[in-house]
């Protein structure tokens, strides 16, 4: 299994779980992002994800390296789906593992926040009353990805 993957295939959370398990892991955290129907009074019909795939997969791997620097020994596997997704379908799965639970939780949370900062994936909402490409709500420095190490 590839640990960092962006493509149109349905996601398999247990494959990522199995990837990050080993004898000296005590805690695995899985995050699964699914397509939600209602946001306030707005009704989503489907989501459409687009990506600059080769760079996105590199960025996922970079996030895993950042995790390992911050929580030594923690393992991270991330798959993101692209294309058209219906309500209830999985868009992203992040699996983190560590000897102790605090690291596995924090590493996982870190990974999803970083995905929303640096991984070239875009979401287009198809609502009952129109469509729109969504920019992340995070405050970012104009023209520069948050926290990216530039040479």
């Amino acid at each position, binding site marked *: 299994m590839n640990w960092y993957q962006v493509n149109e295939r349905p996601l398999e959370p247990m494959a990522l779980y199995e990837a990050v398990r080993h004898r000296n892991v005590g805690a695995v955290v899985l995050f699964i992002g699914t397509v939600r129907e209602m946001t306030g009074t707005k009704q989503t019909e489907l989501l459409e994800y*687009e990506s*600059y795939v*080769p760079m996105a997969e590199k960025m996922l791997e970079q996030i895993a390296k950042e995790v390992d620097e911050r929580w030594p020994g923690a393992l991270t596997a991330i798959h*993101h789906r692209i294309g058209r997704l219906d309500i209830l379908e999985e868009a992203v799965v992040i699996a983190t593992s560590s000897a102790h639970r605090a690291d596995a939780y924090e590493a996982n949370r870190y990974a999803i926040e970083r995905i*929303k900062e640096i991984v070239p*994936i*875009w979401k287009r909402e198809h609502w009952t009353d129109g469509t729109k*490409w969504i920019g*992340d709500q995070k405050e970012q420095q104009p*023209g520069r990805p948050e926290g990216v190490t530039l040479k």
Partner: protein
Amino acid sequence: MIKVLCFAHVAEELSVRSYTVPAPQTIASLRKGLSDRGVSGAERLMFAVNERYETDEYVVEAGDTVAVIPMVSGG
């Protein structure tokens, strides 16, 4: 030449997925080109050269591939 890749709202506004421009050019000049062609929010676009983020002063050379990266929204 420099190959420029477009995604999401940028691709839609320009009605192209890629185009080429003469080399060398700074990212600042590519940004201005997009702004001049009517791309919205050009001042907030990010740029990657050969799959690596770079900033305005970076000089893109012939043969490089530049990706124009709107605010990401994965997850």
